Structures are given as C-alpha cells and as structure tokens.
C-alpha cells in the first residue's frame, strides 16, 4: 500500500478508497490517443483489473499522441505493447488484452466481466454498440471524443441515468475522426485524462460524475462548457432489441423516401449505361462487378446508401461491404426507380433537391436527435 500513500492521504479516499480501486475492474475500448492517456493513470493508481480491447497495430503516425508506445513498437499489436508498458508501471495490476475489435458478437460477454467501460474509440458506430451493450449488461460508460482542439466528455448509463442515445439519438450524420480532421497530442491527452478522472470518481464515489452532462473543452481558448441533458424514457434497449439491431438483416434496408432525408453517400451499383441517372449530392457509381476492387473509394465512417435499379443487386453489394467491415450501410428498397419517383414529386436536380431536403427535413432531422 506504500506506493499509494499519496492518494490514500486524501481525506475522501483513505485506505477504504484505495481498496475500492484495487477491487475495481475497468475495460478500456480502444488503445489509441485517448487510451494512451487513460491506461497509465488507471494502472499507476492501482485499479485491480484493466482490460484493453483493440485489434490495431501501431503506426508511425500514432506516436505523436499515443505516448505509451515507442518507435520499436511500430507494426506490432497495440494491446500487446500496451500490456508490456503497463506491467512495467505496476506489476500488481491484472492486465487483460483482447487483440480484436469490439463487435456485437463479443461485446456483451466482455462487458459482463467489468464494472466500468471506457469509450476510447474513434468511431461513432462503435460508440452506439458500446452504449447499447452497456444498457443490456447494466454497466456505466465514460465517453470521450475529440475534434481538432475541442473535446467532449460524459458519463452514460450511470445509476440509471441518460445514455448516449438520449443525447445523440441516431447513427447518421457527418462525424469526422482524427485521421480525417487532425489532432494535437495534448488535446487528446487532456480529454483522456478527464475520462480517467471520471472513472476514479465513480469507483471512489466522490464528487459528481458527468452523468446527464456533456462537458466540452476547448484547448485553444481554455474554455469549458457543461450542457445538461435528460434521460429519454422512450428509448429502451434490451437483449432482444440488441440482437435485432445488430444481428438482423432486415435493418439493412431503407425506404427511398426515408433515405432521401438522411445525410450520407449514395452508391449506385448499376452499370454505367443504366437509366434513369439520378442527380444526388455525394454520389458515386461503382458497378457491382467492380465493387470489391474499388472499396478504397468508400469511407467506412460515412453512412452509405446503396441503390441499383430495383433493389436486388444493392443487397448483394450490401453483403460485400458488410464482409469488409462496413456497418453504417443501407440498401435502398426499390432502387433508382423508387428514388426517381420521390425526386419527381419534390422537383428534380442536384442542388435544388438538397435545398428542398433542407426545407423539408430540418424539423424531422432535429426530431431524431
């Protein structure tokens, strides 16, 4: 206990508090920039068991902010290198590593073994999975995320409090990650540290957790804001609905009239000569037979609406993309024919259509968030 002497000295921690830390089990999802800030502090503080899940390897461009890795780790597994580093920091901590990505198939089983889940990912899609798996398994999670010089922190599903879906209700919209928008190591470090701090507070039962509150920190201005939000009682997630969302195919289809009011990329998988040609914003034409060799032209972080002439080939395309790890994708029911009919009813043409979408969709759009 001597090594923890400085924190035990704190009036509201004491030996009892240290015992709580030693008994705690925390799972960190993602061993990138946020994880690199969170993990050493949790380890040094003496958290009993720390799980790390990440299927990535270290790249040279990670070293600028993922400060637990060194140059000789490039090309090696992140979780293995993290484990090496952490075991040197504190050999008493049980570090469990999972060299894979969080998936609907492993999330529930994994979460059951921990008390608190930390979201240190860079993907909105995985965030919804973490959120839903936390609700099903009854675990709180500490959210942190960065955009350039700003960061967000919150605590979800804590003591029956609001969840991520109560704040951001739907999985669509443009949300760039660090790779796309750039980030400074200190920004992601600060946000990770705020997350680690929330974890400690929750274990120790001291202070006020950021439950029902979204903290936004601006590192350029040293400005911080806290926004309160309420639990949306209409949202419920249980094991059957979890399985339905993540393991069913019927959710991979969308009606043309719904797709037109949502942001995303339009992927036309018809042959080049097929008509009608649709003037949709953000559209790309990759004929189905050429899809697999052209996947690099698509972004996994953006919602993709796939269409063909009538909605059959787009289902095949959907399966190809699903196999390659695309998750935020839908096949448009009725294909180009159905889309064309909708557009015809609301005037045609690229720019006109998006202005049209703005005017018609805003109330709907905001309602869904």
């Amino acid at each position, binding site marked *: 206990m001597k090594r923890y002497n400085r924190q035990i000295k704190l009036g509201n921690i004491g030996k009892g508090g240290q015992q709580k830390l030693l008994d705690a089990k925390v799972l960190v999802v993602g061993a990138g920039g946020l994880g690199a800030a969170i993990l050493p502090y949790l380890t040094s503080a003496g958290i009993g068991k720390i799980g790390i899940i990440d299927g990535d390897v270290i790249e040279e461009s990670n070293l600028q902010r993922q400060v637990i890795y060194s140059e000789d780790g490039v090309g090696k597994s992140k979780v293995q290198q993290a484990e090496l580093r952490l075991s040197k920091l504190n050999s008493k901590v049980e570090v469990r590593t999972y060299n894979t990505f969080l998936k609907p198939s492993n999330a529930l089983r994994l979460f059951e073994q921990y008390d608190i889940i930390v979201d240190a*990912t860079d993907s909105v899609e995985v*965030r919804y999975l973490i959120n839903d798996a936390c609700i099903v398994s009854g675990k709180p999670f500490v959210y942190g995320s960065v*955009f350039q010089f700003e960061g*967000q922190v919150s605590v979800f599903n804590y003591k029956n409090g609001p969840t991520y879906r109560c704040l951001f209700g739907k999985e669509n*919209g443009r949300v760039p990650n660090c790779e796309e928008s750039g980030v400074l190591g200190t920004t992601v470090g600060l946000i990770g540290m705020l997350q680690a701090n929330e974890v400690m507070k929750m274990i120790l039962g001291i202070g006020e957790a950021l439950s029902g509150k979204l903290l936004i920190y601006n590192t350029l201005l040293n400005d911080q804001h806290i926004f309160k939000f309420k639990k949306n009682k209409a949202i419920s997630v249980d094991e059957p609905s979890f399985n339905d969302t993540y393991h069913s195919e019927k959710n991979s289809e969308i009606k043309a009239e719904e797709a037109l009011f949502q*942001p995303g990329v339009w992927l036309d998988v018809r042959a080049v000569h097929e008509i009608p040609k649709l003037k949709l914003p953000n559209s790309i034409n990759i004929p189905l037979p050429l899809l697999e060799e052209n996947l690099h032209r698509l972004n996994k972080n953006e919602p993709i609406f796939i269409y063909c002439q009538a909605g059959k080939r787009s289902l095949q395309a959907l399966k190809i993309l699903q196999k390659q790890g695309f998750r935020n994708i839908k096949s448009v029911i009725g294909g180009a024919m159905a889309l064309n009919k909708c557009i015809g009813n609301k005037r045609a043409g690229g720019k006109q259509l998006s202005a049209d979408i703005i005017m018609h969709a*805003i109330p709907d759009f905001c309602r869904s968030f």
Partner: protein
Amino acid sequence: MVKVKYFGMVAEAAGRPFEYVEVQTSQLSELIKELYIKYPLNGFALKIAVNQAVVDITENNTVYGEDEIALLPPFAGG
C-alpha cells in the same frame, strides 16, 4: 440578439465559435432553420441547447433576447 455558440465541426462550418444573431422570430426551430440555410450545416447530427440545457427542438421552444443557444455535434476522434 441572441448569442449562438458553435462547437466542433459546426464551428468550423460557421467559421466562428459564436456570434450574436438578430432573431426575426421567437421560434427556436425557425432560428435553427435560418442557421441551416446560412451555413453548410446540412447533414450534421446536432443537438440544440438553450441556456446550457439540451432541448427537444420539436417542442414549442421560444427564444428571448438574453438566451444563449448552442449547436452541439457529436465528436468522433480519439
């Protein structure tokens, strides 16, 4: 004039962290609609906060001169 604060990629799209906006209407949803037309915000997943509390935009929200509105997008970097 209400103060409107922008965060993350919304601040980037608006080209500023905040501004004072002359409101032509007392309806929050109308004000937000105007901002969507003024800036390239179409496609952003947003929450709207009035005086540091997130509101449901579909409810009948009224804005007053002293109010502080915030446009909150989710972030994804990590």
